[in-house]
């Protein structure tokens, strides 16, 4: 077919000043191939390094965009007109600028990340973005363990870890970043060693501190993304508020027994944690994992979701958990999802936000007031003192307010089991004429039981075992298992 190609002004210098070139071709692609073989200089303006038409080069056949036809395979008829029409684009803070600022990858890194590199969604560009990124993990517990390990393995260039705890044996059932040899070590040290072993090409920054209203803003400012792996409400609200105030995305996860939640709270793009829960639950209503238990694998699943979302945020993926709350139930093996909406009246990210700086989160969550109420009326005894008094032959009745399954794990000899939930109803089983020591795992539930009994009118003397059966094991009888 003999066809005519119209050349735009800008490219005429490469066609000897001609506005039209006539040639023989059966398809549009063939016509452009002929044209660029006739006029070699044209090629670099029409095609990119990968031999694809540049994105801003538009080709029309008889006024019809070939993208709406068969692309370069669009057939040509005798005396058709092919037009090359530029679309003109430009602008600042571009991908191209970012591209040059991204760190490069060594051959060793290229081999390491090869399974990422061959996927177009990541590729060299995405892998370099991961290397350029920084993520701050709050906590190296159940959630922080898989988050840190997968982010390190994925090649996130700088990972900050905040924790102040030491590794305890009861952590190892789920916190797979720590091992048996790490018992007693600071968690940040143990986590750092594990992450370094996984990937020596990344930077790990340890922050041996509790996250507080005083240090959170300065810490967050140094990172692109914050991952919340905390297990308590004060820190969760603190992480949320500090993320809103510093404009960082908060990759959220939480776990309890067999159920988990995950979301991305990013005030700039959608709802924050306070849009979902403006106020914390009353203290004691929602038990934590130490009280309620957690399936060891559960944080593995939820943490891996957090790691996935973090990586997607870095890569610029569109379908993140922004404005979505993902619920997971491992016992039913079901995922469910809720849509979230930004609350226009949200006290921190709404239009008329009233919170402009970080507050006292212990107080906000009602945890500060509690101890001031109790000590006045709560009589306590330490495990050591109880042992001594028993040895001296003093008479006590000891009531264990834990659950039967806990009683099976460990118990103090000669005690009576009345779970907290039944203690008022079974008050008549406690002899008010004798001195009574109440105990649980760590001393919190037994204090509640004492308060409940007093309120119900129990007349006898009630003493709380400080530190519960755990303290008994530590101070008196190490043969009693700790859990």
């Amino acid at each position: 077919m003999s066809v005519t190609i119209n050349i735009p002004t800008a490219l005429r210098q490469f066609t000897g000043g001609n506005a039209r070139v006539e040639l023989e071709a059966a398809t549009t692609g063939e016509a452009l191939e002929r044209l660029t073989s006739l006029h070699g200089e044209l090629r670099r303006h029409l095609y990119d390094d990968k031999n694809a038409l540049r994105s801003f080069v538009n080709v029309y056949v008889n006024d019809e965009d070939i993208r709406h036809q068969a692309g370069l395979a669009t057939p040509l008829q005798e005396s058709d007109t092919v037009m090359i029409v530029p679309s003109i684009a430009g602008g600042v803070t571009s991908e191209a600028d970012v591209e040059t600022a991204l760190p490069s990858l060594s051959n060793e890194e290229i081999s390491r990340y090869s399974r990422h590199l061959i996927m177009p969604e990541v590729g060299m560009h995405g892998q370099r973005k991961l290397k350029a990124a920084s993520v701050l993990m709050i906590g190296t517990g159940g959630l922080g363990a898989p988050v840190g390990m997968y982010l390190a393995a994925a090649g996130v260039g700088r990972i900050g870890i905040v924790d102040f705890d030491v590794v305890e044996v009861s952590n190892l059932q789920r916190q797979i970043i720590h091992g048996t040899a790490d018992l007693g070590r600071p968690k940040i040290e143990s986590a750092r060693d594990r992450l370094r072993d996984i990937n020596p090409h990344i930077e790990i920054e340890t922050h041996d501190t509790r996250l507080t209203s005083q240090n959170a803003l300065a810490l967050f400012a140094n990172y692109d993304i914050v991952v919340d792996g905390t297990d308590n409400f004060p820190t969760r609200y603190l992480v949320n508020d500090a993320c809103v105030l510093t404009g960082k995305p908060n990759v959220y996860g939480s776990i309890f027994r067999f159920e988990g939640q995950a979301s991305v709270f990013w005030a700039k793009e959608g709802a924050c944690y306070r849009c979902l829960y403006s106020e914390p639950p009353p203290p004691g209503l929602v038990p934590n994992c130490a009280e309620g238990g957690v399936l060891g694998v559960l944080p593995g699943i939820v943490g891996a979701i957090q790691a996935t979302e973090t990586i997607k945020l870095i890569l610029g993926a569109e379908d993140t958990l922004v404005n979505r709350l993902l619920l997971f139930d491992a016992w039913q093996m079901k995922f469910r999802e809720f849509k979230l909406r930004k609350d226009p009246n949200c006290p921190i990210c709404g239009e008329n936000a009233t919170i402009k700086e970080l507050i006292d989160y212990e107080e906000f969550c009602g945890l500060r007031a509690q101890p001031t109420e109790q000590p006045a009326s709560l009589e306590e005894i330490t495990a050591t003192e109880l042992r001594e008094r028993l040895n001296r032959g003093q008479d006590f009745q000891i009531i264990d307010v834990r659950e039967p399954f806990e009683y099976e794990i460990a118990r103090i000899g000669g005690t009576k089991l009345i779970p907290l939930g039944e203690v008022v109803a079974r008050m008549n089983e406690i002899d008010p004429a004798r001195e009574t020591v109440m105990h649980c795992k760590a001393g919190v539930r037994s204090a509640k039981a004492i308060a409940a009994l007093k309120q119900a009118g129990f007349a006898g003397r009630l003493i709380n075992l400080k530190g519960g059966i755990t303290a008994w094991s530590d101070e008196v009888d190490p043969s009693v298992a700790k859990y």
Partner: protein
Amino acid sequence: MIQLTTEQVNEIAAHGERDYPHECCGLLLGSFSFGGIKTIARIYPISNAREEQAKRNRFLITPQELMKGEQYAVQNGMDVIGFYHSHPDHPAVPSGYDLEHAWPVYSYIVVAVGEGKAGDLRSWEMEPDRSKFTEEEICCNANC
């Protein structure tokens, strides 16, 4: 070298200020003459075709708009000789993205708009090997 009048410079600056904090863009219509001198006869503002969220950092003139502009130019005895756009809160220097998307021969005028006020206005032309932009001398009125 590119020739334009003070009024045309002001027109580009005003467009940049009007569209701040977004980028503005438009065509430069005029003629190519001997010795590579371009003379602008008319400024042809164009709506920014990018989706709302990308407007701040990018401009795009669609092929349809360019074809319309070219038709207008040809009907009035002119050529499209280049494009202008603004860099909100950035210098009047082409970015990597500009280079990636540039065409040879055309003039690219960039006006810096800092906090809503137009400042520097400079013109650039891409090297034929696509390696970089070279600044082009601007002549205003009787100065040249």
